[in-house]
């Protein structure tokens, strides 16, 4: 398939500049003496890392970037050569393969080795194993682990918050002090939370703009492509607030002009279907995957994957009055840390509030943690919301598991199901 050059919005260019600067800084970390923390997106402690003037690196994001840049196949192959099984999470194998190949990041610059491996989210057990591997590959690296209790009972209790704050005080912060050589600055962290809150307010407004008809954004493809990523690495900074302000203005303008979501080939001219999507996208064929949707006029109005880094539309905000408690609540409130009934409730709420026509799952072949319970979620939503549900399978960054013809066939069938249903429902109302 011939891919044309993508059409870009101002915010996308701004994002590119910010990321370029970030990776430049990382490549110069050794010279500048800045310490580097490898950590994960769910339950990330970005504000805390930045408050120590350390630089965060997100291996998942590097892996997905490698997937988009068509480098993951070779990386995965190299990880398999050293013994990682076919069934291991492909983010892990891609990351390890990248490391084995000189740790060249998405911008072509070398990424520095970690000074600290910060495991701040434990809901995905693969994360534990991932860092155990990295610990072996970087002998002597400091490791800090923050155990995040799963919301088994569907709520966050005071005890759980105390438990996490205690770990932050006794385990994570001392490790960070040791690695960075700086004292923990409580008021600096607290100040950053003010910016976090501002960014979070803006992000929620941006995501909720999809309630408009037509939606000015695609809350899945664009959500992971230029709406969400800035959030993880820059939350708590002025730059993030500026970025989200810019994006918010851009989106308001789109609403005013009645424009649909921007895609690599321009606006979606007609919004035919509004969907809620669960599960990560496929990264190796991101654009072809997205194209199947926008060619059919299918817009994703809400998604769960954009909530893996935090569910803010349910009201949670980082709070400068209680920064450590906020971090604890934030980690426990991430989408992947919610129990299944909570996820069903959240997704049903999306289907209703965003007036979606259907609910679709992209299940990931190599992800046990995220894929567990998806069929149950699907069935519950079908029953609760009465919308047609769809199920497709692909993988994160292993191109061997993206079958274009099969996915297209299933999605086309699904879109036709939705279309037929619209006609029937229209006739029922008429009758």
């Amino acid at each position, binding site marked *: 398939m011939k891919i044309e050059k993508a059409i870009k919005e101002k915010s996308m260019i701004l994002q590119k500049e910010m990321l370029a600067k970030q990776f430049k800084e990382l490549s110069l970390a050794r010279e500048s003496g800045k310490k580097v923390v490898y950590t994960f997106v769910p339950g990330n402690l970005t504000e805390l890392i930045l408050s120590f003037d350390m630089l965060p690196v997100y291996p998942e994001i590097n892996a997905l970037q490698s997937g988009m840049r068509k480098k993951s196949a070779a990386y995965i192959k190299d990880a398999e050569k050293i013994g990682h099984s076919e069934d291991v999470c492909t983010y892990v194998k891609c990351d390890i393969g990248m490391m084995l190949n000189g740790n060249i990041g998405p911008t072509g610059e070398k990424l520095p080795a970690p000074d600290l491996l910060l495991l701040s989210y434990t809901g995905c057990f693969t994360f534990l194993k991932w860092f155990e591997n990295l610990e072996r590959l970087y002998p002597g690296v400091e490791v800090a682990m923050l155990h995040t209790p799963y919301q088994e009972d569907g709520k966050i209790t005071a005890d759980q918050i105390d438990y996490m704050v205690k770990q932050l005080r006794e385990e994570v912060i001392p490790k960070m002090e040791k690695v960075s050589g700086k004292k923990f600055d409580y008021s600096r962290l607290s100040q950053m939370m003010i910016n976090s809150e501002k960014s979070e307010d803006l992000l929620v407004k941006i995501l909720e703009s999809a309630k408009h008809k037509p939606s000015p954004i695609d809350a899945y493809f664009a959500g992971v492509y230029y709406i969400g990523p800035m959030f993880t690495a820059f939350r708590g900074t002025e730059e993030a607030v500026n970025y989200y302000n810019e994006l918010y203005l851009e989106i308001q303008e789109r609403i005013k002009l009645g424009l649909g979501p921007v895609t690599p080939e321009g606006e979606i001219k007609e919004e035919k279907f509004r969907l809620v999507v669960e599960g990560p996208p496929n990264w190796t064929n991101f654009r072809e995957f997205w194209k199947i949707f926008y060619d059919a006029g299918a817009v994703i109005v809400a998604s769960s994957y954009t909530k893996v880094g935090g569910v803010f539309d349910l009201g949670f905000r980082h709070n400068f009055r209680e920064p450590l408690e906020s971090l604890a609540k934030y980690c426990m409130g991430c989408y992947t840390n919610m129990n299944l009934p909570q996820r069903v409730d959240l997704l049903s709420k999306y289907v209703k509030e965003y007036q979606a026509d259907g609910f679709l799952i992209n299940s990931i*072949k190599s992800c046990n943690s995220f894929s567990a319970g998806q069929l149950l979620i699907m069935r519950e939503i*079908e029953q609760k919301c009465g919308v047609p549900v769809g199920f497709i*399978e692909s993988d994160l960054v292993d191109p061997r598991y993206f079958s274009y013809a099969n996915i297209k066939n299933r999605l086309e069938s699904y879109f036709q*199901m939705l279309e037929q249903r619209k006609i029937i429902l229209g006739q029922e109302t008429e009758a």
Partner: protein
Amino acid sequence: MNKYYLGVDLGSTTSKAVIINEKDEIIGRGITNTRANYSVAADIARDEAIYNARFSVLKKKLGPELALKPEYRKYIADLESVFQYEQFKIRLDKLGEELVKTCKVFFKEEEKQEKILGHLRAIRKAFKPQIKKDYLFNNLGSKNQFFRDIVSEKYNEEVNKLGTDLFEPLMIVWDKSISPAENQMISFNFKELVHKAMDELKNKYINPDEYFSDESSVNFDAEINLLKGKFDHVSDSLRNHIDEIAGLDFNISNMTGTGYGRALLPFPQECIRSEILCHAFGAHAIFPETRTVLDIGGQDTKAIQVDKHGLVTSFQMNDRCAAGCGRYLGYIADEMSISLNELGPMAMEAKKEVNICSTCTVLAGAELRELTNLGEKREDILGGLHKAIIMRAMSLIARSGGVFNEFTFTGGVARNPAVIKYLGQLVKENYGNEIKINIHTDSIFMGALGGAMFARRNIGAELPNLKKEKTLTH
């Protein structure tokens, strides 16, 4: 003028076409093997459906008379079969030309060329009468066997009788010739062909004893004797009716393409529909209480949930692997050197089901050999294989939400009695004895039927109850 609607289902293994009338009644069916040239496959299936429709119209026209006169029924059934033989003969001639052409290209040396050509002629001479007999006396035409399968079976038989040194050259010539012969679109003249068929039929009945030198193998049943004495009378009385349907202008008002190859069909975009919707729509039209549909085709298994309107609410399909589908059975049949049609009946003889893994077709083949070595009976192994297919389908059904209300089984695999047996067992075991299981004789045509029904509704779906009212007011 009557309006007709066409649905074409271009599957991975077979291409099906169905023609319906304005009352959604099936009046024509056509089926052929899918080949590299999709559009030829679709055209052949369509033409066959139109010929079949002409015969349906004839039977409809004769209506009550047909019910009273078994000799008319016999004549028409025979005529349809001989009509198919006439088509077969023309394609066989094309194949003959291709064989000669290939032989000349491959074997330049005159002596060798002559030798191979001689064998080709002898082979053809040997199998042609056998096939003719199968069409005329053993009802081959109604067995849905395809040109390629019929000819290759006979060709192989003849080649195997010859010396091993001839095997390779004859198979090379065959491999290079069958596809071009099969991919030629031949326009048959219905009227001409049906008249030829009538003449042929006359020979069969007027002089049956001399029809074949090997008369002992011709099986005369009561029905043949029924027609024998009155042949001329029956033939004369029906001639005008036959001419009339031969001259009928078959106006296809709209059509829908579906199936794997649908994107390659020369149909406008709005006439293309997903096979998931078509199978569900077709199955629901025939069994309106259906809420769960299982379709096992050549390369995929689909578990589909439908609502009261026949609309799909969710579906699950096999991903990444097609073990447990029609092709799986095809592979097993090849491994066992038996024909696909024999698999099911043989599995029905099983005294027990040997446990077989169904995750991979190729590995199941290896398992089969190993089990045979261990002394397991073929029937029991096949029983296990058929059960394994259904076990896999059951998992897909569970994923799609289970079985509700009536359960309809569609697709080519629904013709296999052993598959039906184990499906019945397992559905009842898992979802209760009260579940009604529907399997229609037209199960393989469900997708094409659904397509034709969409075509009749001008693609846009209409409520079944509204549809009826609208038809009445026309």
